[in-house]
């Protein structure tokens, strides 16, 4: 009983509970026959939100006002550049990955340069950068869908022991992110900066360095997600990232990460990403339209933040 009480106080519980309820409601439609397929699909598609969400979580952990709106266009540009470089050639997989990563680093550097040097609020700085990055994506190959190398296409769509490969990658990244946050000095630093910048400064933490690296990390994860998504869906499309703008913020918030910064939560992102996929599936399964679906999503976000995040004055 004590244990139960303790778990219910964990911020990630809410997203996991919500995901489970929705999963259950969906499989009940077919009397449980769809359990395996639905779970597998959920894991596959949640994987992309998880990768992007983790990056966004690191940025949001930096404290109020920190947010990266350039995630979608970074995904698009990284996917486009990588597929263009690889030209369906299996031998070019690694260079493709490298170019995607370099794209991420570049976007992250520009983001933080604007925030720091021009003192533009992150929300506007990253938005401006996203426009420029989007233009760069259009300019590079004008929206042609180049196919991914066959090995990558097969790899991203295949399963290992019934678990989708992309979900395994997301798991590896999650473990890495969790390790960074919980076990390393860098994790302590971002959490400290997010709780109080002046206190972090006085504790001798290199505040700017920490924030700089975090913005880069977020952009690199977005690039990686773009690379994988482009391979998974058979080519980079100019609009392939747009879904992940609100998604990346929503999974972080629903996952129990404090919007006021300082407190991040990797397991919560899994719950929230699964939930975001499953809730659409459920509402589609029940034949509900786009309108109801949006309203429910909004109400759920507000309820979760009220239950988990609010504190009385």
């Amino acid at each position, binding site marked *: 009983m004590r244990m139960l009480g303790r778990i219910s106080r964990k911020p990630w519980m809410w997203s996991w509970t919500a995901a489970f309820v929705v999963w259950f409601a969906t499989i009940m439609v077919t009397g449980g026959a769809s359990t395996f397929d639905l779970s597998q699909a959920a894991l596959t598609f949640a994987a992309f939100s998880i990768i992007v969400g983790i990056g966004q979580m690191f940025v949001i952990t930096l404290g109020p006002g920190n947010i990266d709106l350039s995630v979608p266009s970074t995904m698009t540009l990284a996917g486009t550049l990588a597929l263009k470089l690889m030209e369906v050639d299996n031998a070019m997989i690694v260079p493709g990955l490298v170019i995607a990563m370099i794209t991420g680093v570049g976007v992250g550097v520009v983001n933080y340069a604007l925030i720091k040097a021009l003192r533009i609020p992150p929300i506007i700085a990253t938005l401006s950068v996203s426009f420029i990055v989007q233009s760069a994506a259009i300019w590079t190959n004008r929206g042609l869908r180049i196919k991914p190398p066959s090995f990558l296409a097969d790899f991203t769509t295949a399963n290992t022991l019934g678990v989708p490969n992309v979900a395994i990658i997301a798991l590896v990244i999650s473990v890495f992110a969790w390790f960074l946050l919980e076990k390393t000095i860098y994790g*302590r630093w971002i959490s400290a900066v997010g709780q109080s910048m002046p206190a972090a400064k006085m*504790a001798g933490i290199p505040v700017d360095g920490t924030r700089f690296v975090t913005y880069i990390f977020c952009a690199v994860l977005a690039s990686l997600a773009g690379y994988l998504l482009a391979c998974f869906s058979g080519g980079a499309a100019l609009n392939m990232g747009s879904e992940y703008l609100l998604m990346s913020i929503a999974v972080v918030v629903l996952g129990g990460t404090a919007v006021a910064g300082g407190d991040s939560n990797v397991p919560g992102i899994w719950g929230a990403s699964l939930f975001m996929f499953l809730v659409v599936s459920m509402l589609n399964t029940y034949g509900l339209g786009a309108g109801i679906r949006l309203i429910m999503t909004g109400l759920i976000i507000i309820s979760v933040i009220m239950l988990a995040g609010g504190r009385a004055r």
Partner: protein
Amino acid sequence: MVRAAKFPWSTAASMTGDTLTAIVEVADAKVSFGAVKALDGVTLAIMPGECVGVVGHNGAGKSTIVSVINGGLTPHQGNISSDGERLARYGIGVARARGVRCVFQELSLCPNLTVIENTRILHRDLGGFGWRKRARKVIERSLDLVFPGHGIESDRSVGELSIAERQMVEIAMAFSDAGVAPRLVILDEPTSSLDAGLAEQMLGYVRRFVDAGGSVIFISHILNEILTTASRIVVMKDGRIVADRRSIDWTEHSVVESMGSVAKGEANRRAVRDLAGAPVVVEQIGPGLPFRAKRGEVVGLAGLAGHGQTRMLMKLHAAETSDWLARREATVAFVAGDRRLNGVFELWSILKNFSIGSLGDLTNRGVVDVAAEMERATDWKRRIDIRTQDLANRILSLSGGNQQKVLFARALSTRAPVVLMDDPMRGVDVGTKQEVYEIIRQQAASGRTFVWYSTEMEEVCLCDRVYVFRDGAIVAELEGDAVTEGNILAVSFRGAAA
């Protein structure tokens, strides 16, 4: 008569004759913030036509009693009556309706609004069409009365005014009359940013106001002002009133004596050491005397609170740290006094709050060595007696004093050769203080330098050398035997006394 029009209640007060009742009376008020007893049974009555001067050391509870009288803080125990009737539900609204006004210690105007607009905020019933004109009249009249020739344009925003001008506006605002006339005006360190001329203008007005039957509570660290203006002086110490006499019965010396800390045992006094040959490890040149600290030295920063000591510490810190790259070997460590602002990380456990300062030593290729971290924390928990069952508890579960100890341990456990301390002993109990003093003494002996700002005289007297601050600059340097309470107070108050 002009005077009667200015102070409309004066006739009413005199009509009641000798049977004067207190405007506000606080009986046996107790307030505590966690473990800190800010008020420990305070009884205070303010009569019409008197100016009560309140003095006491930093943190004595002066501002807290002000908040109680002002209605902003409900005491956890005790009751409040006004004009002879006991008020069960006393609050800001009730207090204001009874003519209680307050000038707070910290800026309490909205910096983004103009002087006129701030007047509007303060006077709730100034509204209606054309309020701007009325508000302007109200505040300008009051400013003219209190500070003739002030030269403040009332349609400038407060953020653009100088500190002194802001303080003038706040004071004038408290004395202004827009419907409900002020009867009791509380001034919490109102002259801290005014020069002698302006302060004298204000004090003159306070005297006239009191003569006309108004009441004032006047808090100041500048004893001269209190002695010349107050009709009664109350001395507070550790949340209690320890003396309450008519002001003619006080002298500057007796006030200092009654608020001064316990006479320190000679045991605390550190042996005079010869540091002439030690190398200088930190140096800062600013307005006033230059600042220097030598290896193994304990340098005190003294003077009244808020006269630039903290800023100096921040500057020393900024000069030795980088915002972009972590230094391999930290050269300074910092103990915060303002815990909330730049000390604790509220979401974290005690353990993490402790170790963040010395993580460099506790990590192996960037990975935190949890066992070593725990070992060191446990060691320090024992050494300075942090009262908690579990170091994994949240830092906020600790009492303020214990939080402060954690911050202390954070800095002392680093290998930095210089430790900057910003009044680090707030809320730390006596026994622990002695232990910390002992640690400081040992570490100084083994070559560590301490720069120590303290508002507690006892601590300042432990230093090898003391810089006294006034108005953002170092005005005096005391060394060895010259470091005495009397000397420091004398230098600190010199500006005001002149």
